[in-house]
């Protein structure tokens, strides 16, 4: 397995820049997940690593070897496609061995490697079947098998679970995590599903509009989002945002009131900021205090062990609070909510994290 290093990577279609100055290192044996809204460039980045898209500038190195000008087959990568892209006219064994045949691998070796992959993925009884005779999950495993037999330096996954139903998606996610451990593989994985990202990744890369917004360990991104975009993108339900202005010793939230906050520099006084707090760090509690805001209950969602209360603040901003167990709150009730000061996020006028 090998390390993938991407430096100053740029790509444009005509005047449209789809990748802007991407720098990214995928450590040897690590599992890196690219997430972002559709059209953010994550798939393009993956296809650039694969060599399926020519790049406009920058370098891509795999295992210390610059691969910019190499065709996909010589980059020692293997790719699992969203639609699996199995050859419909070949059986499972032929599908898995097809690339090796063209690399002039000896027949015995191809058979051995296909058998090995089939064993790992429990595909042995299906080797003589055609793709259309397989279920979605089986096709998915064949697609992964096709990648394994190539013994690549890097595995590339392009939204591999998006065509599966919910239950199968969870199963396959676990399978992929196990496979990563088993093969000690370097994996770059694209998804728009943040649960997949959080559970699978050693490192998450959040992309937006062709740029990397932040990269880091899943929980680092969760607890210390670098900017408003990442804060809003990671976590479900999304982080609450309240607009305000920095004052001496606190933040004026306009009609919503004010919060006292230590540690703000004097220079920041007067600047417009956004206060962010996750639903699980908002408590419903009557009374007054430095970090309390009054609100009206709009809707209560009960999920059983937990629930979400949607609250409207005087300014019109809607905030969500997570509750544990039962609550007597009903739509229309007036209440107040307390913000946990250790989990407050503050973003400056440019959207970057402050403090």
């Amino acid at each position, binding site marked *: 397995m090998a390390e993938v290093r991407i430096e100053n990577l740029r790509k444009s279609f005509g005047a449209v820049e789809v990748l802007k100055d991407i720098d990214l290192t995928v450590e040897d044996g690590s599992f890196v997940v690219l997430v972002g809204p559709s059209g953010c460039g994550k798939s393009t980045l993956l296809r650039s690593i694969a060599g399926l898209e020519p790049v406009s500038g920058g370098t891509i190195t795999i295992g210390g070897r610059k691969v910019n000008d190499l065709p996909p087959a010589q980059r020692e990568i293997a790719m699992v496609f969203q639609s699996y*892209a199995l*050859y419909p006219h070949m059986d499972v064994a032929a599908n898995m061995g097809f*690339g090796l045949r063209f690399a002039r691998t000896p027949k015995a070796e191809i058979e051995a490697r296909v058998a090995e992959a089939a064993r790992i993925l429990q595909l042995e009884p299906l080797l003589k079947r055609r793709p259309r005779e397989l279920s979605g999950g089986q096709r998915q495993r064949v697609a992964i098998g096709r990648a394994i037999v190539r013994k690549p330096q890097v595995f590339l996954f392009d939204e591999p679970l998006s065509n599966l139903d919910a239950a199968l998606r969870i199963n396959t996610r676990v399978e992929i995590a196990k496979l990563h451990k088993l093969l000690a593989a370097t994996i770059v994985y694209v998804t728009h599903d943040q649960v997949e990202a959080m559970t699978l990744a050693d490192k998450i890369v959040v992309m937006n509009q062709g740029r990397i917004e932040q990269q880091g360990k899943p929980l680092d991104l969760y607890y210390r989002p670098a900017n408003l975009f990442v804060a809003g993108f990671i976590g479900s339900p999304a982080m609450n945002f309240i607009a305000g202005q920095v004052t001496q010793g606190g933040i004026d939230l306009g009609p919503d009131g004010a919060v006292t906050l230590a540690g703000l520099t004097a220079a920041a006084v007067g600047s417009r900021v956004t206060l962010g707090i996750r639903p699980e760090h908002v408590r419903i509690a009557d009374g007054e205090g430095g970090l309390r805001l009054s609100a009206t209950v709009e809707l209560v969602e009960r999920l059983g062990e937990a629930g979400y209360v949607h609250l409207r603040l005087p300014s019109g901003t809607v905030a969500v609070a997570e509750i544990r167990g039962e609550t007597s709150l009903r739509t229309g009730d007036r209440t107040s909510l307390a913000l946990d000061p250790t989990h407050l996020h503050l973003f400056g006028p440019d959207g970057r994290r402050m403090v």
Partner: protein
Amino acid sequence: MPQGTFLRLLVFFLGPALLVYSVFSIYPLLATILNSLYSHQRDGSYLWNGLGNFQTLLFDPTWSVPFWNALKNNFIFFLIHMCVQNPVGLLLAALLSLPRLRFRATYRTLIFMPTMLSVVVIGFAWQLILSPLWGIAKMFLQTFGLGFLFAPWLGLESSALITVSLISVWQFVGIPMILIYTALLAIPDELVDAATVDGLNQFQAFVWVKLPLIWPTIGLVSILTFVNNFNAFDLVYAMKGALAGPNFATDIMGTLFYRTFFGNQLQLGDPSMGSAVATMMLLIILIGVMAYLFLVQRRIQRYSF
């Protein structure tokens, strides 16, 4: 729904189509087959003749010589289409479907253009171009130092049929091209990407991945070519007239049928023999279609993506 209302509904929706189709398509076909079993008398009446007309057509030299000649010519006509039109159509479709090709729409539109025009126009235009009187073709060959190759191809018994066939190929190559092009476009891009990752170049990806997936379309194109070729008439009639000269060298089943039915300078028209020729054509086409359906199509695997 009450039975009566339902019936009225069916009659309303199905009636017009079935009426027109039955009267102007199925009835004439059946009547033609029936006609071929009678013989037309000089006084205009018809006498039952059983398979006599077919015996005459196949074994009486005045009839059988032109018949076998037309049949043979028609097979050559078909073979030239299969060996030139369809491979060229495949090549053009393969090139047109290449990713990131510039001017794709322009090429496609222009190459399809001749297919839009009437065979009469096409036939006559080529007749002028190949005519020694105008000398365009000769001039062209001379530019490449090949002037000695020129001959009045359309006028020579040895080359007239091939020339007419190639003109037909030139006109209709757009049809296989478009059909195969469509089939190629239906192949998902990811499949080609997968082949690229598997180490195949464009050409190999075409041969090993795309071609096996478009066999059903190539089969369809072949049977369409067969039916159209054995039903052809317009081009030969427009270029060489009903007599399909020189000396019947370009005579195909369609022109033979026309001559037999309407007559010409050499013979009187004969509806019964005309029907017999039409019935033979029907038989040939049916045999071809059946052979395709039962022998070829069954072996071709269809794929949905």
